[in-house]
């Protein structure tokens, strides 16, 4: 069996970053874009914790707790904004939100 090392975690995290970025750039549904952003934030968390373990330094884990908290705040605000928009425009498709020129 191949032992799991820091490099494996970094690869997983890089893959999540890639998936998230592609999701943000190509998806039209705003909810899915939001989920993709969350995916990137989780990639960050995996990185931080893997490094924290490799360096035997607690700073990374504390940082990860802050990132999780921030992700929650961001999701709450994002969904709130989306609901306000949906009430007026009845759509969550990014390409139909085109009142202002992109």
């Amino acid at each position, binding site marked *: 069996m191949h032992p799991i090392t820091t490099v494996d975690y*970094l690869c997983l995290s890089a893959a999540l*970053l890639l998936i*998230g970025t592609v999701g*943000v750039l190509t998806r039209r549904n*705003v909810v899915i*874009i*939001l989920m993709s*952003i969350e995916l*990137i*934030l989780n*990639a*960050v968390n995996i*990185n*931080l914790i*893997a*490094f924290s373990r*490799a*360096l035997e*330094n607690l*700073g*990374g884990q*504390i*940082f990860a707790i*802050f*990132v999780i908290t*921030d992700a929650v*705040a*961001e999701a709450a*605000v*994002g969904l*709130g*904004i*989306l609901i*306000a*928009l949906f*009430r*007026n*425009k009845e759509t969550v498709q*990014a390409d139909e*939100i085109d*009142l*202002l*020129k*992109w």
Partner: protein
Amino acid sequence: MPGNFATASDVIRFLPEIILAVMGTLLMILDPLLHRRSSNAFGHLSILALAGALGGAIYAYLNGGPAFGGMLMVDGFATFFGVLVIVAGILTILPSYRFLARQGAETSEYHALLLFSVAGQCLMVAANDLIMVFIGLEISSISSYILAGYLREDKRANEASLKYFLLGSFATAFFLYGVALIYGSTGTINLAGVNVVLSGPGAPSLVFVGVAAALMFVGLGFKVSAAPFQVWTPDVYQGAPTPISAFLSAGPKAAAFAVFLRIFTTAFAPIGHGWEPLVWASALLSMTIGNFAALQQSNIKRMLAYSSIAHAGYVLVALTARSEVGTAAAMFYLAAYAFMNIGAFAVVSHLSGKGERYQNIEDFSGLAQKQPLAAAMFSIFLLSLIGVPLTGGFFGKFYIFKAALESHLVWLTVLGLLNSAVAAYYYLRILVMMYMREPAEATEAVEPLSPGLRLALIVPAIGTLFLGIFPNWVLDFAGKSSVLLK
């Protein structure tokens, strides 16, 4: 050491943030009590809070130094930007009285969010540690996302807010990924610590650190609306309530530049030759895209948004110089820019009318005949944005290009100067409209200047002229504070 969780000096150095956060919370609690009496009470209270924070910032400076085990650094640099964002907050509230009354949207949330946003910016500018940078950035950004969509019945505001939020959190995520890589490769998140590791022997591989610096550059570049991460700026500035557009172009931008300067000139100073071309290209691109796109705009808020992209480009020129003179020039420029841009947006907010109907450049026709004071003040701001002598904008540009020349950035200086010449055209067009045309529908309907708006025009105008006539006073302080801890 649990006993030393926060010493008295920590609390003193953290005073502005404490005052703002407490007052913001208090405003929301007092909402039901105050709402029936006077809708102006919220504005008065937030100005009081910001004035208190201003006092707190100065008191903190007099007792300056590191706080919370070096996570914050209250030095001249932090105080300069702290005072700048607090003043930007005050200048945003002044035109908001009349604006909110006209839209029938006076609530405590508006003011509370503004105070939280300023608190976040105060934290950002004093941050000496990547966790603090991140927390400050997010407090400031999340409040700004909501403020941009504050008029929630307005489709344009909804859209502006959503775009700002999506692209903003995407950029933050990138920034964080960069921070995680820095943590992994250097083992520290303290800016001075990163500098020590990068310049010492056995520095981590440049590829790894380079990727991290590039990711952080993407995140910060978004926050300061530098090209090629500027696409959100025109939409958000156009859709957001006008006083908030003014605020976004001054407060969060200045704070993000402060973080930019602090991270790139302290932590990443040892790899300066690596990031310099990146910032060079971004500066040139921002100036060019901003100015040439602004030429074609008919909506004044969009035009000012593109102009703000161009101005971000000028400040990036100062950053490219990688010198203390450059840092001081950027600080001076951001102060001058905050005054002139908030003033310009205050005039737009005054003229736009109920539901922000009048936002076109043609709507300014004949303003000088109807309201000479507003037109005169707007002229001062526009001339300063062009960079005419005797205004803050002139000395701002002068010092930036001087710093660039001292660092042998001849081409960037030449292209930057050509850009400022292009910019003169679209600012002068508004002057022509105001002074040489007959009054149109918008200017006929314009309401008399309220006391708050009068102040919101006169104070930035005095600030702009002061910086243009006595630049040394501010520049000396900026020069002294630009010597950042390495």
